[in-house]
């Protein structure tokens, strides 16, 4: 037996099994649950590290199980997969810590953490899937695993949000499945291959392929929150903060974006897709999403809603990078998977801290909060500058590569999209910073909880600080061999770009 054949499965198991055990735990067994959670994520990280090393040195990790005649369940660790897997593994650990702190003393924690782990397993599955059907499988699993998290609070509003979420995502899933089957009937294979597997098809299939592309993108676009498929995302903010963080930074939204990357590069192949003439509209759509969502964000007073619209905007950078169809832009798009994850999760952690510590939900309540919670807000500030794309944050690297890629591909209009987006980002984020740092704090916070000497519980404080530092760090050391950027370059190279 070759270990490498089972490692991808093991990786999923390392998050799945703790999750399943946690389901069975009694509510009050906090310590055991915490141990399980943390050990799961640490093992996960170790495995990921091992595989990173292996893939870098050209090893193959592939689990292949038969699913249907002619179709296998394939889990493969390629560079692109591992980028996403690593992000998930790291952020899972942090989010778990955060969630433990966040949910301290609240009910239904076993259920929460169970689904949380399930969610991560699904995300890892999405990342590692080696063909479209495996992708579909985990993609839908992700939908299911997130639903209980969204309705976790059990309020009427939560139920409504869950309903809308499902309505969007399941319709998207339906489209995706439809398109996948269609593709399968045309090609007889769904295996992800660098440069795609469709060039061999004759010209008479082109209209069908265009249609399939549209369907696939529509299916994935729901999770990636491409306008006009984004309606669920602001509503889903009803969920607890760790869920929002996970949803936005790692799991759901990213799964959609990652799917788009896969479809464009490994199903259609960028050259073929460009040849079909489908990438340009995709780029336009992404650009429109970036700008429109930023505009919408300007008008939100609820912090999490503003962040949600910001997510919609930011995730489309990935799509944009992919659709620009150039190696540099691709690097930018792919690396933004990680960068956006780090930055956005920071912001959500901070928003969660505000809600949990001071009961602040609205931007208009944030006056002077920087004096009460300086560390949280420092992390928030870094996240904000990342969003705007100021150096040396991760966001700058993304924008730089996207811009370079756009110029390289002769699509200079993208530059103006980037500029406009940054401008809007500044317009809706900087006033928050102003409030936070330069206004006088009110006499009383809406709902203050005391955490002793610290501004808040350390479990709540640590994760945002770490992610903020990471967001700063990956930008600062972008040119080294250990940065996500370097890995993205490796991906571009292995994808044959």
């Amino acid at each position, binding site marked *: 037996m070759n270990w490498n054949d089972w490692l991808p499965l093991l990786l999923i198991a390392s998050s799945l099994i703790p999750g399943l055990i946690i389901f069975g735990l009694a509510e009050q067994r906090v310590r055991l649950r915490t141990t399980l959670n943390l050990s799961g994520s640490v093992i996960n990280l170790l495995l990921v590290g091992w595989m990173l090393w292996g893939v870098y040195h050209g090893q193959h990790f592939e689990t292949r*199980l038969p*699913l249907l*005649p002619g179709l296998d369940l394939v889990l493969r660790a390629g560079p692109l997969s591992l980028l996403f897997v690593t992000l998930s593994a790291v952020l899972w650990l942090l989010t778990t810590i955060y969630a433990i702190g966040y949910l301290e003393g609240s009910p239904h924690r076993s259920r929460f953490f169970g689904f949380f782990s399930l969610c991560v397993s699904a995300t890892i599955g999405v990342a590692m899937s080696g063909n479209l*059907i495996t992708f579909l499988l985990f993609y839908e699993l992700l939908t299911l695993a997130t639903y209980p998290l969204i309705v976790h609070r059990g309020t009427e509003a939560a*139920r409504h949000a869950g*309903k809308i979420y499902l309505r969007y995502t399941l319709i998207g899933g339906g489209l995706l*499945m439809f398109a996948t089957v269609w593709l399968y009937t045309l090609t*007889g294979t769904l295996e992800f291959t660098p440069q795609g597997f469709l060039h061999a098809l004759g010209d008479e299939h082109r209209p069908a392929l265009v249609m399939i592309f549209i369907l696939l993108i529509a299916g994935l676009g729901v999770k990636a929150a491409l306008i006009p498929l984004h309606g669920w995302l602001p509503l889903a903010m009803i969920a607890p903060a760790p869920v929002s963080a996970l949803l936005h930074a790692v799991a759901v939204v990213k799964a959609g974006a990652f799917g788009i990357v896969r479809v464009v590069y490994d199903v259609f192949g960028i050259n073929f897709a460009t040849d079909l003439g489908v990438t340009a509209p995709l780029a336009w759509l992404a650009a429109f999403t970036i700008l429109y969502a930023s505009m919408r964000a300007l008008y939100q007073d609820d912090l999490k809603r503003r962040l949600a619209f910001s997510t919609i905007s930011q995730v489309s950078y990935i799509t944009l990078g992919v659709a620009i169809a150039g190696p540099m832009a691709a690097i930018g798009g792919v690396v933004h998977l990680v960068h956006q994850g780090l930055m956005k999760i920071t912001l959500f952690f901070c928003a969660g801290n505000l809600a949990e510590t001071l009961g602040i939900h609205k931007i208009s309540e944030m006056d002077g909060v920087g004096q009460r919670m300086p560390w949280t807000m420092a992390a928030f500030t870094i996240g904000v500058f990342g969003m705007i794309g100021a150096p040396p944050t991760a966001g700058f690297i993304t924008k730089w590569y996207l811009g370079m890629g756009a110029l390289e591909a002769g699509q200079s209009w993208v530059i103006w999209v980037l500029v406009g987006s940054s401008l809007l980002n500044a317009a809706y984020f900087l006033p928050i910073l102003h409030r936070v740092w330069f206004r006088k704090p009110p006499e009383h916070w809406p709902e203050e909880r005391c955490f002793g000497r610290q501004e808040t519980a350390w479990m709540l404080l640590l994760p945002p600080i770490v992610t903020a530092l990471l967001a700063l760090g990956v930008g600062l050391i972008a040119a080294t061999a250990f940065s996500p950027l370097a890995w993205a370059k490796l991906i571009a190279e292995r994808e044959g770009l």
Partner: protein
Amino acid sequence: MGDFLLTIPWAVVLILLPLVGAIACFLWPKKVNQLGLITLGGVFLSVVGLGAWLLENGVYHHAVGGWNAPLGIQLYADGLSLVMLGITALVGVAVSVYATAYFDRSQSERFWPLWLFLLTALNALFLSADIFNLYVTLELLGLSAVALVALGGGKAALNGAMRYLLASLLGSLLFLFGVALLYHTYGSLDLAMLSEQVESTPTVWMALGLMSAGLLLKTALFPLHFWLPPAHASAFSPISALLSALVVKASFYLLLRLWLEIFWPISGSVAGLFGVLGVMAILWGSLQALRQTRVKMLVAYSTVAQIGYLFLAFPLAMGAGVTAWNAVIYLAISHALAKAAMFMAAGNLLRFGGHDRIADLDQLAQRLPLTIAAFALAGVSFIGLPPSGGFIGKWLLLEAALMQGRWDLAVVMVLGGILAAMYIFKVLGYAFTEASKPSKVKTVPVRMEWAALLLASGAILLGFLAPLILPLLAIGTPFDAFSGNEEIMP
């Protein structure tokens, strides 16, 4: 030892054992639970034995009484029968375990003999190759099912049972009429012999019409579903599980057999009608399910919708035979598992809160997590989300549809999945919220919760078992006769 085991005529055991069990339960009501469970265990093992035999030797033939085809009755088992028998045994075991906790003393005394009769009827039906014998098994099936529904005892249950009985008898008589016509046309009752002789004559058309209508009525295909929701929703939950999971499938199986064996040369044009009815069943059933305010009614209407999928295969089989049939059988068995699990879950809810009003489910996601998990997993299979048996089935069906450019059907399949999601999550959503007025709760035996959950997990597991099950289905190539002209397997 292995050889000896293979010499045992498992098919016969499958018929006689539950019958013996039923009689034993009738004779010694004090020990029904033990007797019943032993019987079920035996049946399960027999299915395994039959499966082993089939894998070894291919198709199974048994001339009852030693009399060959036109004179005597033939027992016949191929992959299709095997899979149906297997799913029956599986669901049967789970429901039986569930029932031991669900029913009280006097109820289980009444339940067991009837249920074992039902099992006898199912097994006999899946194994028979004689159309008159099939009529008798249909009657046996129908009467035992009705009696089981009537066990509920309430006004709704009795009304449902009565409706079911009348419909079932009507269906049987229509079938019998067809049998009469076929017999007098070809002088044989044996499926295989009929299939060799059958040709397009007015008598056969009429027989086709009557038998199909009768079986459609028993299968509750839209618009003949009128009897199903009241009967299935009002019966005791384990019984609803049996009815929805197995009984309906039995008549569908019979219809399928008749098509595959007898009617395929002439039925091509009817396939379109079946397709249309299937589509309408999916849409109508789902919409109705969405309207329901009680869990069991919702689940019952979901059965109406799911039956629609089974009929989509008929128009698709023209161009993509094996794929379409495989899809449908897969859908059928995963539906069986999932629906049984779902009814059991509904039973748990009923037991727990004393009601099954959807809006008052009152945080059951926390208070009955296993049950809600079972419900959700079963729902996943209905929606056709991966990984689940429903997904595999739907995938194959979609594949068959798209291979032939049947966009309409493909769209309906996807739409049906979305509608299913809407009604499933309607329930699940309320399971997370608090009810306006809390109701008194009773404990639910662990066995009931686990039975539901395991069965639902089975439906999920089916999503990974296609490489095992599809070859089983191919034993005896039941679908070859009607696999269409062109075989497009990518």
